[in-house]
């Protein structure tokens, strides 16, 4: 059964429909990609799932429970971890303390006996940030800062991980390693929902893709099915314009390419 389900979620800002009747799901043990051109509503959907924004209509279910009106921190305690499109790290703390404070918070609300040092070190190692442990988080380059956010999300022991453009700022080698990490996380039983513009990473890491465009879900399927989907190609490349050369050239209207 899907850990996350959204049912006909809509979001209206003034006269603009940021999301219109979007129903998606994320299964444990799978990496699900959520792609679409800029402004498609991906981050808005993440904000609704995590509770940072209430939807205009529709519902969000976690493990079968309607959490539409549950507060942000309670949803986090129910098992949602996320990273942000625009970094939300604790800049005045060191990398270690970013993770540590999360583990300390979890210990408080979960009332579990947790070895904070051991747990912090394990997460730092998992995301590959041990050598930066003492560095102030706000001095890190973007790619490393995104790994701090990921480590922090993992420190909450989530069952659902929402990753919003985590690959932004990573070089090729780091992206490769990140893809392996995603697979690893899915193997641990996490449901991973990934928003990314790096199509190489998306196509390799995701077993299932959903495509948003102008706030609507226009396609859903395997990477191969999505690659061949005309509606998706139109969304990225622009329906009026004839395709320019091969499909791997940068799109005219959106960001990213479809390898």
């Amino acid at each position, binding site marked *: 059964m899907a850990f996350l389900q959204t049912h006909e979620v809509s979001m209206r800002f003034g006269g603009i429909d940021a999301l219109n009747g979007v129903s998606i799901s994320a299964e444990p043990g799978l990496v699900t990609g959520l792609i679409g051109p800029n402004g498609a509503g991906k981050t808005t959907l993440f904000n609704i799932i995590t509770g*940072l*924004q209430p939807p205009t209509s529709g519902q969000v279910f976690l493990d079968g429970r309607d959490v539409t009106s549950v507060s942000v921190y309670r949803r986090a305690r129910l098992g949602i971890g996320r990273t*942000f499109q625009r970094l*939300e790290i604790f800049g005045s*703390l060191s990398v270690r303390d970013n993770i540590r404070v999360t583990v300390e918070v979890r210990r408080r609300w979960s009332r579990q006996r947790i070895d904070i040092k051991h747990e912090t070190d394990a997460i730092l190692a998992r995301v590959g940030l041990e050598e930066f442990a003492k560095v102030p988080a706000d001095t890190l380059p973007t790619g490393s800062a995104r790994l701090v956010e990921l480590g922090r999300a993992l420190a*909450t022991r989530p069952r659902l991980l929402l990753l919003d453009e985590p690959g932004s700022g990573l070089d090729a080698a780091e992206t490769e390693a990140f893809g392996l990490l995603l697979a690893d996380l899915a193997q641990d039983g996490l449901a991973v929902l990934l928003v990314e513009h790096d199509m190489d990473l998306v196509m390799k890491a995701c077993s299932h893709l959903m495509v948003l465009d102008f706030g609507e879900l226009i396609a859903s399927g395997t990477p191969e099915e999505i690659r061949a989907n005309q509606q998706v190609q139109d969304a990225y490349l622009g329906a009026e314009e004839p395709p320019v050369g091969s499909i791997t050239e940068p799109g005219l209207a959106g960001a990213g390419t479809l390898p």
Partner: protein
Amino acid sequence: MSLFIGLTIAGLATGAIYAIAASGLVVTYTTSGVFNFAHGSLGMLMTFLYWQLRVADHWAGPLALGAVLLVAAPIVGAGLQLSLVRWIDINDTGIMLVMTLALLVLGMGVAYAIWPPDTARALGPFFGPSAFVTFLGQRITYEQLLCIGLAIAVALGLRLFLFNTRLGITMRAVVDDRPLVALNGWRTAKLNALSWAIGISLGALAAMLQATLFDDLSVLNLTFLVINSFAAAMLGRLRNLPLTFVGALVLGLAASYVTGYVHTQSGPLAELETVLPTLFLVIVLLALPSVRLRVGAPPARRSPRIASARVSGIQSVLVVAAAVVALPFLHGTNLGAVNQGLAIAILGLAVVLLSGYGGQLNLAMYTFLGLGAWLFTKLSPGGGLGGLVLVTLIGAVAGTLFALPALRLRGLELALSTLALSELVWYVLFNQSNVMENTITIHRLRLPFISLQGARANLVFLAVVFALLAFGVAAIRRSSFGRLLAATKDSPAGCATIGLNLSLTKIGITALSTALATFAGALYGSTQQQVTANDFYFYLGLFIVLIVYIWGVHSPMAALFGGLSLAIFPVIAPHLPAWASQLTYLAVGFGALSMVINPNGTLDAVSSRVRAAWENRQIRRPTAAPLREEARLLGIPADS
């Protein structure tokens, strides 16, 4: 019926003044993103300037009006924006508010220095005593009609300008996306300067109307007239001019009807007319829709280093040592000032906790100081230690109750609500005859085995208490709770998504700091032994916040320097030239403005420079080992 008509006209005139003041505030906010706490202070300065030209220097009325409203006020507004406001990071709410609070204090200091309060001044009405019309049996003065007419003209004029002219629309666009406006060829600094010129002129107009309509030329009243207009401005969410206008009129009418129909000579209700605008502001703020957690905030400015336990310990020992060493040199007034300064320094630690670590700008700290002093004498008339403990616990509970309705508020709204509540408590509680309207006597704290009756013994006691508390406050920062506070400041959204209940954290830090503040109040009262309500006047809370920010709100030692500064300035001031007689206002005002250069405060700036100089020295000085190795490679004997 005629009373009702009369009150309605009076209320409309008062509301019109609030509307003009509020409109100026909204203009500067919507076009620059800066909430100008000094709006009333600058208007007050312009009004005194008008008095100087019109009454003291006998200029013709229209000339004096034109010189102030069309020349001086725009120049002051534009000048401030170009020289200071443009450098303020509007995303750093704390610094933004501190800067404009500094301007408020500075404006008062300049006014007191140029126009000392010991001389009576009055601005006559614009029109003569026979200048009125009669409507349904009621006199309506030309002054009142002028106020109403000008308010309507301002409202319509601003609406047309900001929404129907290219310049006005562009001024509004600057707040949304300054770089984009600049890319389209507009000089954003000039646009902002224009908006501030308009805003300050409107503030000046409102203050002048207030002074003439109510025959009230007072630095304090004109400066804080603006609080009355805050409520109207907040009703319009600082953006909606028509709603601001309506809110202002409603407020003016309500105040007028209360004056006319509520006849209470004593007790809290007697203050209702005075506090009604403030009460209105509190209600508006608490009734505002919840502010969503902001995502995508820009990164925090560099945080100062946290002192280690060793360094904190050394600092605490040095504080006590300095107190003991200074003892023989302190007598009379100086001794009293240092005693007072140390008590206020303990209050400063509460500011460090709440604003420095917790990121909450609370302008009501002096209210808790006063509460502590009053409760100590009520609960422990003989000055017993048990009373001190009880006062501290009550302070924690009071802080929790204080925090509960304000949980949804952040940044500007929180600062406004605390200032408003502080004013309410002063009028409704402190200034009552059975509380502190008259001087109350407080017994010196009694400790077992130690007598604190002498000022010197009390000074050493306060130094020890401060040292221990400063060490404790620094330890809080190094603890898991301190990390939590830092995280909450950096990213509330990030904290919520890791499962942190932000409300509980906010209540916790508020309770801790208010407990410390009331504890400080008990010691302050014990030190001073006689206090009145005026010792805790609500706007004094601005000084303790500003002075701690100046020295460095993240450092407990800033509380020490801040407290001592505030106590010593009044002692030094009489020995200075007349223009510097308002040393406290001027020093605090200019000092806080310097935070544009040193946002982390003076102590951090000094220690950073010292550390950098030391590190440079270490780099430049070659060590012996590389030199020996070089000599060996070059074949130079080791002993040459």
